[in-house]
């Protein structure tokens, strides 16, 4: 009855994008508000969807709409949302909106802000991207899924190729060729399924649990579809487009790439590959698991020796996606639940991390860790705190969102489906566990290199440094300077145990430093002082500036959700569990 909701979710950004083409000059002065409003409306629709969703029936597609599309071919415009896709739709709408907030809020600044190069094209690109992403998660028809899956590539190609960094051309070409190649293979697999069963309806195919397809056909189709999805996911060894794309992409591109685009690949496993081709899945799962754990360890090791912050976060995705794929490979409700949870958690956490990496690059003009020099908690305490929080969430600390998915994926591997060889999966579990330790290792080493230690700013004149160290000075400690006087008459004030002069401030997620200004892991509390931030900004000079208002607005929801899902994993698990049990009906 509320099928219009899904159509509206697609129509709002699509019409918005078209309107930009039709009336370019009328909209030009209001581009910022335009992007914000459209993505905001989409987000509101997604929230409405979350609110109206019948949680008792999470296993079944809801708000279905099923219209003939290309009658001659039997293609249908079939949309629906169930417990698996609902969180991803909401995540997509949220992240897109936050990207617009990040781009549009406040007075535009140089660099990555919307008012840089080609603002209209950027808004258009992002809106089209949103259509493709949401459509992928809503589609219940194989070819419709494929169409949306492909629609996403083009705007992302332009996003990297136009607004990217120095090596953007090569990275964008690599991205599009690689993923298109994967898509072709996937298309062949989908067509094979169609040829064998005569239907493209995902719901019907999933309910059939592979009936009507011989085992060999299923294996072939699973491999073909799996390769296509694995390129997008990306699975080791098909991952090499990812670091380049992430390193060169602008911040919002990285965020959407990591936060949503990678999810489309993993979602494909949950929506198409595993339920439609159960026998193929059972045959290929050991290989999938093997590649997954190789990806976990390989990604972690690659991160450990990485110099570039953005590249490191990109490789960390390879590792985290390894956990997701391991969860799918177990073919158990626990494992797939874990995979889906890890999927959403990764979207939130890595999205936040890329926002942060973008902010770092924005301020230091490099993401090369040795050049950053350390001491970020002293120079940019709030940014350092949020970075610490995100890293700790990403390394899978219980109580934050990153943990539950990985834990459940490992638990799934501990007791895989009956058709799978248990000793093999026990080995995977152990390797995965060691990978989790390595994950912790590279994040902590990164934090140690970037946020700890004394700040070293070779770019600045020495005299300036002295000023900063010496105490309050206009450019000094960014926000903290006026508050950060040396406590007078303090015989205890020894340089060695005291942070570099008074600028020191919060040092952890939530750690607070500085003398007066509050800092914390919950940007929520920083928000209490937007006026303060605004007031200080003008006289900053060349000193990098701590978290700005638009960044704060964009990051706060992510931080809150990471905490929420971490403390109450049941929120997501109760949503996915019934759907997963239906989905596995034939496999186990």
């Amino acid at each position, binding site marked *: 009855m509320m099928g219009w909701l899904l159509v509206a979710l697609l129509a709002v950004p699509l019409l918005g994008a078209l309107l930009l083409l039709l009336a370019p000059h009328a909209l030009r002065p209001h581009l910022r508000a335009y992007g914000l409003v459209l993505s905001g409306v989409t987000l509101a629709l997604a929230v409405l969807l979350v609110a109206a969703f019948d949680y008792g029936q999470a296993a079944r597609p809801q708000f279905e709409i099923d219209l003939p599309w290309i009658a001659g071919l039997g293609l249908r415009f079939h949309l629906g949302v169930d417990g698996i896709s609902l969180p991803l739709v909401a995540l997509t709408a949220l992240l897109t909106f936050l990207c617009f907030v990040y781009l549009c809020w406040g007075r535009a600044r140089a660099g990555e802000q919307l008012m840089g190069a080609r603002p209209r094209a950027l808004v258009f690109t992002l809106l089209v991207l949103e259509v493709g992403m949401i459509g992928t998660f809503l589609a219940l028809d194989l070819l419709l899924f494929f169409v949306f899956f492909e629609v996403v590539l083009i705007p992302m190609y332009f996003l990297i190729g136009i607004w990217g960094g120095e090596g953007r051309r090569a990275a964008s070409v690599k991205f599009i*060729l*690689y993923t298109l190649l994967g898509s072709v293979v996937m298309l062949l697999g989908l067509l094979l399924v169609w040829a064998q069963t005569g239907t493209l309806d995902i719901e019907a195919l999933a309910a059939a649990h592979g009936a009507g397809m011989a085992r060999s056909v299923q294996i072939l189709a699973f491999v073909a579809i799996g390769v296509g999805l694995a390129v997008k996911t990306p699975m080791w*060894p098909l991952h*090499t487009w990812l670091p380049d794309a992430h390193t060169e992409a602008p911040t919002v591109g990285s965020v959407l790439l990591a936060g949503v685009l990678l999810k489309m690949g993993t979602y494909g496993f949950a929506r198409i590959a595993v339920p439609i081709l159960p026998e193929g899945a059972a045959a290929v799962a050991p290989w999938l698991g093997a590649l997954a754990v190789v990806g976990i360890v390989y990604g972690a*090791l*690659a991160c450990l*020796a*990485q110099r570039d912050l953005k590249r490191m976060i990109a490789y960390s995705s390879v590792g985290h996606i390894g956990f997701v794929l391991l969860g799918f490979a177990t073919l158990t*409700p*626990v494992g*797939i639940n874990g995979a889906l949870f890890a999927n959403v958690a990764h979207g939130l956490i890595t999205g936040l991390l890329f926002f942060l990496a973008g902010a770092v690059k924005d301020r230091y003009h490099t993401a090369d860790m040795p050049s950053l020099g350390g001491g970020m*908690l002293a120079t940019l305490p709030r940014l350092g705190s949020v970075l610490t929080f995100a890293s700790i969430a990403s390394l899978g600390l*219980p*109580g934050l969102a990153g943990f539950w998915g990985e834990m*459940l994926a*490992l*638990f799934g591997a501990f*007791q895989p489906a009956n058709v799978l060889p248990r000793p093999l999966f026990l080995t995977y579990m152990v390797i995965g*566990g060691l990978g*989790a*330790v*390595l994950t*912790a*290792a590279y994040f*902590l*080493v990164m934090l*140690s290199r970037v*946020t*700890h*230690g004394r700040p070293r700013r070779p770019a600045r004149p020495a005299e300036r440094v002295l000023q900063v160290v010496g*105490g*309050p000075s*206009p450019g000094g400690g960014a926000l903290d300077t*006026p*508050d950060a*006087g040396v*406590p*007078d008459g*303090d015989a205890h004030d*020894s340089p060695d*145990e005291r*942070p*570099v002069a*008074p600028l*020191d401030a919060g*040092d*952890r997620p*939530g*750690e*607070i*430093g500085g003398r*007066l200004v*509050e800092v*914390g892991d*919950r940007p929520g509390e920083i928000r*209490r002082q937007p006026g303060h931030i605004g007031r200080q900004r003008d006289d900053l000079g060349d000193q990098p500036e701590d978290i700005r208002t638009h960044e704060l607005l964009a990051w706060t929801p992510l931080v809150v959700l990471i905490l929420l899902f971490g403390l109450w994993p049941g929120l997501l*698990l109760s949503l996915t*569990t019934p759907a*997963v*049990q239906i989905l596995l009906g034939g496999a186990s």
Partner: protein
Amino acid sequence: MTTFPLLAVLLPFLAAFAGLLLPRLPHRRGRAAEDLAPTPGAGTAAGAAGERANTRAAWIAVLPTAASAVLAVWLAWGPGFAFLDGEGATTSPPTGQTYGTIVTGGVPISLTLQADNLSGILGVLVTLVALAVQIYSVGYLKDDPRYPSYSAFISLFTSAMLLVVYAGDLLVLYVGWEIMGLCSYLLIGHWWEDRGNSRAAVKAFLVTRLGDVGFLFGIFVLGLAAGSFRVADVLAKVPEMSPATLVTATMLLLAGVAGKSAQVPLHTWLPDAMAGPTPISALIHAATMVAAGIFIVARLFPAFLAARPTLDVLAVIAALGMLGAALAALAQDDLKRVLAYSTVSQLAYMAGGLAAGSDTSAVFHLVTHGAFKALLFLSAGVVIHHVGSNLMSRMGGLRRELPVTFVATTIGFAALMGLPPASGFFSKDSLLVAMDGALTTGGLTDAAALLLYACALATVAVTGAYATRAWLRTFFGEATPAALPEPEPGTAHVVDGREAPRSMLVPVALLALPALLLGFAVEPHLALGVAATSVVLALLGAGVVYAFWRIDPGADPARLLGPFRVPCERAFYVDGLYAALFVRPVMALARLVVSTDDRVVDGAVRGSGRSARGLSGALRFAQNGNVQLYVSGLLAGVLLIVVGAVVFT
């Protein structure tokens, strides 16, 4: 009453958030002052604002902890010390309730918080030591600009530890277990300007996390075998589990225990963890978190009792750990490192008691150790605060300047050595009795039991020696009136003449009471022979050190170790060994992966791109727009076809 465990956990948790958010909110007056004078010279106002923030943070930290302590005492009031009197963990039904179940698609997670005889005692220990440390820290970090976050992290830690203690579900317990590790990391790295502190924090987190992976897998094994993660269900199913399952599960759990409780071979992080502020060492790295491993074994003791091989392994680990760490403690110059190695050694005692089959004596020692080791650390903090250095070679003759601390430390060392009537005497005696009993009752294999008991007795003597050495070198002899050196990074403040502020002395004095008297709380089960042996051994060790010290009070009595001194000081080179075996290979592997990724994996991708382009380049030669070439090609083709047609027909 049934909500008390939840409240006790939640109060410090909320305090942690409040402590992070609220103290820095500008005071109305402070804000005005700042607006008036935002230029240099606002230092006074800002300093005052910082002090206000610290004061506010102190209240936010202390009050909820105190409330939690009241709740914990209330919860423990009924059972009292019933657990230590041998009545087991579950004589009366636990107090608490389940707050819901999280479906996972497999074994569900149930959010249960409850207090039984065992967790009642531990809850009291945790909250009281945390309270003492919070009050102490107010004075210790009075001028630290990061005090609000510091106290908030202690609150978070208290909450996590209480979660571990009161959890009725293994995965809930694991959550608290890991958050403790995080707090440990954050607080060790409190003075992160120094790279050394940062490295120590990372090391602590990684080493414990390595053990925790095993711990998580152990939980998986138990949970799957029992069909539930609830502690009560798991323990009820233990008799039905196969020995292989139990041995696997307990061995894996043991990895986590070794990591958290700093037992061989995962002990190396604890001495480095002394880089953190001294109150943190007292709370996390002496009294509570490191004892969590012991607590877990006691919690799941029926499972361990049913897995004999695990107990043997535990006995060997404990035997090696207690003696090795005690010897290392004898050679350290840094007072805090002496205490750190002493903690490793004492925790190994508890592990030995568990291996010998006596969970009550292990928990008894856990409690007394919590009291006297926290006392020793807090006293050491006063000393360090006073001297401005961690090194004992810079101390000496302090008993006149710090009389209160001197008395408190003396009580602490007496308890550590196991001299009557201090609490440590009773608990250590009950441990030794248990280990003595293991020789005959056969809970362990003979060799393991013998090794354990022999090492335990030897360690008593070495403990006497290192405690006496530290005591003499700190409080006796000549004061070393060195010109104030640059304080070591990570040490606290510089000399200010008198005893420490009252907020530091009161917790010290209050902790001295249980350290002295806790032994009488439990019905004594003294075995005179064992007790006399241990006291004689401890005095023997003390006497040897005293003799060496008398010969030359200025020199370090550690010279009695002779050629073994350097290996002991370096803790038998384990760190170097691990660096060579694990750290460097992993880093080398990481670099290899990066270059492989670039050359091989991505190389293949780029190579395929290049070869495609090369191929197209070859094809392009044919498409060069030269009509003559096209015609020639056409004719050549026709010719080939004709020839083919002629030949093959």
